[in-house]
């Protein structure tokens, strides 16, 4: 039976944290832990979720959780898994929660190494599209055109010039046991992917889009709306990779307007119509590749 709000574990494992109101990342962590249960051992590198959860003596995880080095989420997961297994403990799930910077920039070699060893771990990247914890600096998962403190909008350059790194297909290219993309706007899909991943042996990677009201310049109650709209306008997609195959889980019948999505966020306020056309064209190109290479469910 697939997981829904009614069948989900009622216990809370991530509570009393100091994340901003309307934080998407904290919702991703909360829901993933409800799926995995109290035998999840969480590893968090530097980033929003460790900063908001471990402020001694305010400790907001109800399960075992620890902070790793920024670059070492995946290697600490490897150690946690091997260490517990060596002690004869088998009923646990080593799970990492790293942000987009901790995954795609700073932690990518540790993650690559873990996938190469096929360690039995679950790595969840909550992607809020910049280093939000330190005050909104660009990461390699910041999309084209987004204004951050290191890609400011000026007269000549209007925000970030580079496209978003394709972490999902990078992990898949390792021949990983299971990889998936998700969005906190589609929690049923996310919950079931976390559950499915927890039952697969080997390295699992889930990339979940988690809007950040503070960094995106949106109202606190719009977090879920944006997490839905980013999928509906085609700038993000829900997919899986396993057994050497890409599967598209959800295809909007018709994309909503990219411009509407972008114009509502202050990080994209400076974009010209030409910039928005660039975003639209890169989306269409991406979807051409998806249509060609992904099995559409």
């Amino acid at each position, binding site marked *: 039976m697939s997981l829904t*709000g*009614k069948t*989900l574990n*009622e*216990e*809370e*494992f*991530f*509570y*009393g*944290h*100091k*994340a*901003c*109101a*309307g*934080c*998407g990342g*904290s*919702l991703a962590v*909360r*829901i993933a832990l409800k799926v995995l249960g*109290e035998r999840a051992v969480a590893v968090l590198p530097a980033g929003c979720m460790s900063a908001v959860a471990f402020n*001694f*003596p*305010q*400790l*907001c*995880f*109800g*399960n*075992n*959780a620890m902070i790793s080095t920024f670059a070492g989420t995946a290697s600490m997961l490897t150690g946690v898994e091997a260490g517990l297994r060596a002690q004869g403990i088998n009923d646990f799930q080593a799970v990492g929660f790293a942000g987009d910077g901790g995954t795609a920039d700073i932690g990518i070699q540790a993650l690559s190494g873990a996938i190469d060893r096929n360690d039995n771990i679950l790595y969840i990247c909550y992607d809020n599209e910049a280093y939000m914890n330190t005050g909104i600096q660009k990461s390699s998962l910041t999309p084209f055109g987004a204004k951050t403190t290191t890609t400011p909008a000026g007269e000549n350059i209007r925000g970030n010039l580079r496209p978003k790194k394709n972490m999902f297909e990078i992990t898949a290219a390792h021949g990983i046991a299971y990889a998936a993309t998700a969005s906190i706007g589609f*929690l049923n899909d996310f919950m079931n992917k976390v559950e499915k991943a927890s039952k697969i042996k080997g390295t699992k990677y889930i990339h979940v889009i988690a809007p950040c*009201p503070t960094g995106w310049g949106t*109202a*606190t*109650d*719009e*977090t*879920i*709306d944006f997490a839905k709209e980013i999928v509906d306008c085609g700038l993000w997609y829900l997919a899986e990779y396993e057994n050497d195959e890409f599967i598209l889980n959800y295809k909007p019948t018709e994309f909503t307007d990219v411009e509407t999505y972008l114009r509502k966020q202050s990080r994209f306020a400076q974009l010209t119509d030409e910039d928005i056309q660039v975003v639209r064209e890169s989306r269409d190109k991406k979807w051409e590749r998806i249509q060609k290479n992904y099995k559409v469910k």
Partner: protein
Amino acid sequence: MKPYLRDKVPTTLSEIPDHTAYEAGYLVTKNAGWRNIRPVINLEKCVGCLQCYLYCPDGVISKEENKVRLDYDFCKGCGICKKMCHFDAIQMEVEK
């Protein structure tokens, strides 16, 4: 285990650990002071669909007798629950 508020705030040197591990789910402060507006649930309109419970980033909405209840100690007033409610059962009211 759900983290919960403790009476004891470790303050003296002997109460503070000399290593980096401590009890899980140890809360000493509330988040209620962050709020300008508060969600108020109209239980007559609530049908128990649990969308507010599911999408709350802080997990402050729990199931209770086929409906929901809200923990105002930890609600930050983001308003996501009101947006998720399709039955107009949640209103945001100004904190006084």
